[in-house]
């Protein structure tokens, strides 16, 4: 019965990889399981009433909002974002320099459409965001991974990597980086490295894709300038999202960059979904323009700061500290555990027995690695649940270590 589809699959279809989080979904859903696997916001931070106040806009502008919208995005929301992001972007970007998207995930697909031919190469942090690797992989990309440390991508290694790639005849299309509170490794790229990366990008004529879904969710320290703001030459595409600063159910993201590349991505978006829902874009705009975004964001940040602190102290309380290390994230959603003497697959199985789940490090590495790493999300669970889950994880580790 099904062979008619199979025999008509594309090569992409034969090679497509479902997300490993989906693969373990049935495990995560077992009763009693504490899961640090997903990357979801906590629903209790959602500003439900403030968001839905915006529904009133349908009373005055309903006929317009129920119609097809422009592919470029709802102009008032773009106007707001241009203003609101100006401190981070170094200036107010114009309407033609911005495209509203169906979440920032769509930016990954669109830049793939615009830039990537099968066999092309993308330079990324190693490890990197899984769904980005998947999106680029679907477009046929190969990857060069650059190691990371507490200051993010080890940028000093990039020139040599680019030179080697060129010598091998590889076409490097862009450098993909998550500068703030990296997913999965939690680190933040230092200012010096950001400047260096822009210099390298210019020297090699390779653009940068700066993915920043977590950038506004900072717990400690000062915001650093975006790479976009450090580059006057239009060589940086910046992607942002409402998923973490408002709510993911809106599916609204944006990208900012030189107008030629934005225009190309817009034409691809026409063929992909025509436009993002003008209704949800208008609801987001109402929320923002009434001042709720600025008023509510500190509450989201302090909710997650408390949970990060809870996870940090639970780690210190329950994990075998001589066997596990991590970088304390200054923002974002994730801890990344490094366990040189523990096989993560064995740990995962043991942890599931004890009813605690996480994501193994392996799928975050495009070219292999991560056998001794785990990604732990702290935003979704309560501090009490976090403590209990980390205790179980600590027990699993100790058993594996024979303690």
């Amino acid at each position: 019965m099904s062979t008619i589809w199979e025999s008509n699959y594309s090569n992409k279809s034969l090679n497509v990889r479902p997300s490993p989080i989906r693969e373990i979904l049935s495990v995560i859903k077992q009763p009693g399981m504490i899961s640090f696997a997903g990357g979801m916001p906590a629903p209790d931070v959602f500003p439900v009433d403030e968001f839905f106040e915006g529904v009133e806009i349908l009373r005055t502008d309903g006929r317009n909002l129920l119609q097809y919208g422009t592919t470029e995005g709802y102009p008032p929301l773009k106007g707001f974002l241009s203003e609101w992001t100006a401190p981070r972007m170094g200036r107010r970007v114009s309407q033609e320099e911005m495209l509203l998207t169906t979440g920032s995930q769509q930016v990954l697909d669109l830049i793939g459409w615009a830039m990537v031919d099968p066999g092309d190469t993308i330079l990324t942090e190693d490890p990197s965001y899984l769904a980005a690797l998947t999106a680029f992989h679907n477009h046929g990309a190969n990857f060069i991974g650059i190691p990371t440390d507490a200051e993010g991508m080890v940028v000093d290694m990039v020139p040599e990597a680019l030179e080697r790639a060129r010598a091998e005849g590889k076409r490097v299309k862009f450098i993909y980086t998550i500068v703030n509170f990296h997913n999965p490794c939690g680190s933040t790229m230092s200012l010096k490295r950001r400047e260096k990366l822009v210099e390298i990008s210019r020297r090699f004529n390779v653009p940068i894709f700066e993915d920043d879904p977590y950038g506004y969710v900072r717990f400690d320290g000062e915001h650093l300038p975006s790479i976009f703001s450090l580059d006057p030459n239009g060589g940086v595409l910046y992607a942002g999202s409402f998923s973490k600063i408002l709510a993911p159910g809106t599916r609204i993201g944006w990208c900012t960059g030189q107008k030629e590349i934005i225009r190309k991505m817009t034409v691809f978006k026409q063929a992909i979904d025509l436009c993002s829902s003008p209704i949800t874009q208008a609801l987001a705009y109402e929320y923002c323009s009434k001042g709720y975004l600025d008023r509510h964001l500190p509450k989201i940040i302090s909710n997650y700061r408390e949970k990060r602190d809870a996870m940090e102290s639970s780690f210190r309380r329950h994990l075998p500290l001589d066997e596990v290390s991590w970088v304390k994230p200054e923002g974002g959603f994730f801890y990344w555990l490094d366990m040189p003497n523990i096989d993560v697959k064995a740990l995962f199985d043991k942890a599931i027995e004890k009813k605690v789940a996480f994501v193994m490090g392996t799928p975050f590495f495009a070219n292999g690695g991560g056998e001794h790493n785990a990604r732990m999300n702290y935003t979704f669970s309560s501090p009490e649940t976090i403590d209990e889950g980390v205790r179980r994880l600590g027990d699993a580790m100790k058993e594996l270590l024979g303690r």
Partner: protein
Amino acid sequence: MSSFWEPLYGRATRSLKPSPIREMLHLTRRPGIISFAGGMPDPAAFPVDAFREAANRILEEQGRDILQYGTTEGYPPLKSFLSSWTAPRMGKALAEDELLITAGSTQVVDLLSWATIDPGDSIVCEEATFLGSTGTMRNHGASFITVPCDAEGMKVDLLPALLEGAKEKGQKVKYIYTIPNFHNPLGCTLSLERRRLLVRIAQEWGIPILEDDPYGYIRYDGEHLPTLFELDDRGIVIYAGSFSKILAPGTRVGWAAGDREIVRKMAVFKQAVDVCTSVVAQAQVYKYCELGYLDAFLPKIIAHYRKKRDDFETAMRRSLPMEEVSWVKPQGGYFYWLQTPRVLARELFDRAIEKQVAFVLGEPFFPNGGGERAFRMCFTFASPEQTEEGMNRLGDAIRDCLSPA
């Protein structure tokens, strides 16, 4: 400045053409122009108050849940509503895993193309077809094998020879794309006999069908015909539906129904493309349906557009030189397709714009060329007065083309 990105563009970008319709639409937005060009619903037919009520109700009941990430497959209540609502048309109640909620039906084309098309593969379609779809397929690297059409839709009996020819040339046909009801742009509807034959041929050749049916529920006359999906017993048909025409396009909610294996593949691609369709939008649509508004308003929407079609037909008969123009009266949908054997549409377009009336040229709808003497008119958007006045102008423009001063 642009040199940074441009030298690194991918193949699809280098061959990317801005949509000719988009360029044309620019002209049609000039003040004073009466436009039959776009294919948009009439905002007057939007059930704004009912939708707003639904939006308010869902927030009271589900506010927190619908602000979270949703499953890629879609909001379960909406899926189960659709499963029963579409059952009469689909011939059965779809199972949960045979249904995928998408960002409009445009995304169905994109996802199926991800799953099936490698650069160089071929798609079979009507000789003229929806530009948005062929644009998407072209981005995926497809070329096209086109089948002539008449009042009963695709001339399906020509298909075996075309497929044979493709096979000889070594072309790999990945699916047959068809708009069976109230075709865009041709306005025709595929007859029952041809539907049966199409499914049989597709089964024999082992080629899937994408049945794109955004207008199917907007029927003005006659009885609904069975879907290709219902006529097929081997899971070879993917059906694409949409709320754009039965509710409103601003929701951006559509769906795909088909064999669970291909639906699953499409869902895996959707993960990478946009994770999930806005849960907020899906839940609003669900509540609207669940409160009974879909069934309550659909007859009103249909009646609204039937009247417009009839006004359009009357205006055409009154104002156009009948011996020079022919068309098939559409039984539903949005479009008239006019054929003018002695008039070049491009020339007519220039004269029409001078006279402040606009339509869309036939040519861009033909992926492999054709349509020089045909054009598309949308009847849903203009008011009755505009329709009458616009048709007068168009009639004059046709006459001018035939006997230039």
